């Protein structure tokens, strides 16, 4: 059986499973559509949250970004897990006690203002759509590889499937499907990692193998990798090369963004009790940590394997020959990935060899010229987003592992896209239409408009996903910046302070506008290419990249909110009572719709 058929089998079987569950648990009422009737156990909820959370960015993109940058991209690891601490300590139990369905409902009620609710809805939609763009990039990579077509065609096919899949059921269908997706994605992520860790270090646990000894050299794995990269003129893997201030800000943006993203917060509305909301965040992080503790090992080991591929006898010897790439079956993955347009190589000096080195480093260039390998890096394109999916092929693992990883990557992208689309559709139909414009809408119309909202957002995200503003994880990081600058401060001030409605609205608007403008100035207006005035290599303010700006936006949000609140009338008596009741777990009944 060839690889294509095996992939098709694995992907087909996993899809049949998800669709089967979605049909079995189809949402009947509005309450089930949004919050699964609040009957979800914390462990189940944690697993579904993990699937919801770990998207194409975590599964497909993150290890690649770590692999090609090294230590400096530890930001993704700390940022995307540290946010759960904020969520568990500062938001989840109180939002559960409040007991409504959506984040904007809390903001609308706590700040006793339809304007506050409207502003929150707009912030949620902008952050979620940006997030979906990142997912679509990952969907394009995964479908492109698996169907052996270009990533653009892959993206278009993927969009149709995501849509069909998301409109099927609401949260209830999604919750149980996502449990299945979690199992598929974590198996797919860890099995190749265990294989590779065994091959390289003899340790079956990748997170331990990362700090173990490289079996071939007897030296520590990371020391071997550092030495190899140094020889080729790249930065060492374990050293800190970038800007420290930006690294701190970026990590902080990812953390507070995590605690401000609607599709994750919504999960904590679906547990039966306040104490369950606290445990749920912990369980979610347990399931997330299984992948996040493995990802840095995947990154480092893949970087070592790839570099070894191009320097089969070590960096002191000859580069790999074109003939070997074309004929040796161990290099077959290169030809398949070339079809997606995400991997490219070219024998620029016609010596029949593909020399992979850092041609921006004068010493490495001088060395390559002296050896007759030319002055340019001949591995012309290695898209970071392909690393995880190509990893099992690079490590020469069995075909079924490759099929499993294809299914896992798609599960990750689909589950998050579905969760986000649900958050967007509930924002539009529940908060915007029913909450503001047409309060008398019937349940049926509400469900219909929810589905129309899904269709529109996926169309927009697909269109923008064709020219993404960065690798999947980088686009997703922008969405986190937006959530960090808008929603998180509003929620936190709503629980921990007595900031009034004018303060909250002014704060959210400031955070949104300033962060959005900063992102557009660097990534192009509405992400349209070539409309940017600055680049992240040379940002407008000091060393602050557009992906790190969320933390600054959040600080501005807090500051503006406090100042405006001080200058205007204090919150009314009943809101003060609401704040006090949210802080005490007792009396958290089943949540009510209004």
């Amino acid at each position, binding site marked *: 059986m060839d690889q294509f058929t095996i992939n098709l089998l694995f992907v087909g079987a996993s899809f049949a499973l998800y669709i089967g569950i979605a049909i079995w648990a189809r949402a009947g009422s509005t309450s089930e559509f949004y919050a699964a009737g609040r009957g979800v156990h914390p462990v189940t909820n944690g697993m579904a949250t993990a699937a919801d959370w770990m998207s194409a960015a975590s599964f497909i993109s993150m290890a690649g970004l770590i692999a090609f940058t090294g230590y400096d991209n530890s930001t993704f690891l700390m940022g995307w897990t540290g946010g759960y601490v904020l969520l568990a300590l500062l938001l989840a139990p109180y939002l559960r006690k409040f007991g409504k369905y959506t984040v904007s409902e809390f903001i609308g009620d706590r700040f006793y203002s339809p304007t506050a609710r409207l502003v929150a809805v707009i912030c949620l939609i902008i952050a979620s759509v940006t997030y979906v763009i990142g997912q679509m990039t990952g969907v394009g990579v995964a479908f492109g590889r698996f169907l052996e077509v270009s990533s653009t065609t892959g993206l278009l096919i993927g969009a149709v499937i995501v849509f069909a899949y998301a409109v099927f059921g609401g949260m209830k269908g999604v919750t149980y499907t996502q449990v299945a997706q979690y199992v598929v994605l974590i198996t797919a992520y860890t099995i190749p990692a265990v294989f590779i860790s065994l091959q390289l270090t003899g340790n079956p646990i990748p997170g331990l193998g990362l700090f173990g000894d490289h079996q071939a050299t007897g030296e520590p794995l990371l020391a071997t990798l550092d030495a190899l990269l140094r020889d080729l003129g790249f930065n060492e893997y*374990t050293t800190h090369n970038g800007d420290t201030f930006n690294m701190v800000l970026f990590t*902080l943006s990812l953390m507070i963004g995590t605690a401000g993203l609607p599709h994750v917060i919504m999960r904590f509305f679906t547990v039966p009790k306040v104490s369950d909301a606290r445990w749920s965040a912990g369980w979610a*992080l347990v399931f997330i940590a299984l992948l996040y503790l493995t990802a840095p090992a995947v990154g480092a080991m893949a970087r070592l394997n790839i570099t070894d591929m191009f320097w089969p006898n070590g960096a002191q010897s000859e580069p790999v020959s074109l003939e070997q790439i074309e004929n040796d079956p161990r290099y077959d993955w290169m030809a398949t990935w070339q079809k997606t347009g995400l991997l490219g190589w070219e024998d620029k000096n016609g010596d029949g060899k593909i020399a992979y080195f850092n041609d921006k480093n004068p010493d490495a260039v001088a060395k390559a010229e002296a050896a007759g390998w030319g002055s340019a890096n001949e591995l012309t394109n290695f898209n970071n987003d392909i690393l995880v999916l190509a990893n099992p092929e690079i490590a020469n693992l069995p075909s079924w592992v490759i099929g499993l990883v294809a299914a896992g990557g798609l599960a990750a992208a689909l589950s998050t896209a579905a969760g986000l689309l649900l958050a967007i559709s509930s924002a539009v139909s529940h908060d915007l239409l029913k909450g503001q414009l047409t309060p008398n809408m019937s349940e049926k119309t509400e469900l219909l408009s929810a589905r129309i909202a899904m269709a529109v957002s996926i169309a927009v995200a697909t269109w923008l996903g064709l020219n993404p503003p960065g690798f999947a994880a980088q686009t997703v990081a922008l969405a986190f910046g937006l959530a960090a600058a808008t929603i998180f401060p509003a929620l936190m001030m709503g629980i921990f302070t007595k900031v009034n409605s004018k303060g909250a609205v002014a704060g959210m608007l400031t955070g949104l506008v300033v962060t959005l403008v900063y992102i557009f100035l660097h990534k192009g207006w509405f992400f349209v290419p070539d409309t940017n005035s600055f680049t992240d290599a040379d940002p407008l303010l000091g060393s602050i990249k557009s992906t790190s700006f969320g933390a600054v936006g959040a600080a501005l949000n807090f500051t503006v909110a406090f100042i405006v609140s001080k200058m205007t009338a204090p919150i009314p008596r009943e809101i003060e009572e609401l704040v006090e009741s949210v802080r*005490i777990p007792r009396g958290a009944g089943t949540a009510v719709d209004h």
Partner: protein
Amino acid sequence: MADQLSQTARHAATQKDDKAYWAANVRIILISLVIWALVSFGFGILLRPMLSGIAVGGTDLGFWFAQQGSIIVFLALIFFYAWRMNKLDKEFGVDEE
């Protein structure tokens, strides 16, 4: 009349308890967040040069905290908080029965 008085007294007592409960909660949150920041921004990034003397598998302790240690501590923190708060809820009698 007497009944009304005792009710007001009870109400005042509950309010005082609620304040103390909240203060205790905020203190636990603050301690947890100090640890949260120390292992990530501290050991993982800013204090890494200070930890560079402690070797861990071909690199240093700061690298380990950035890629493994911080995540493990985050997990411990959330479970500690859930356990501690559920206990606090019972101490103050504000748990959900």
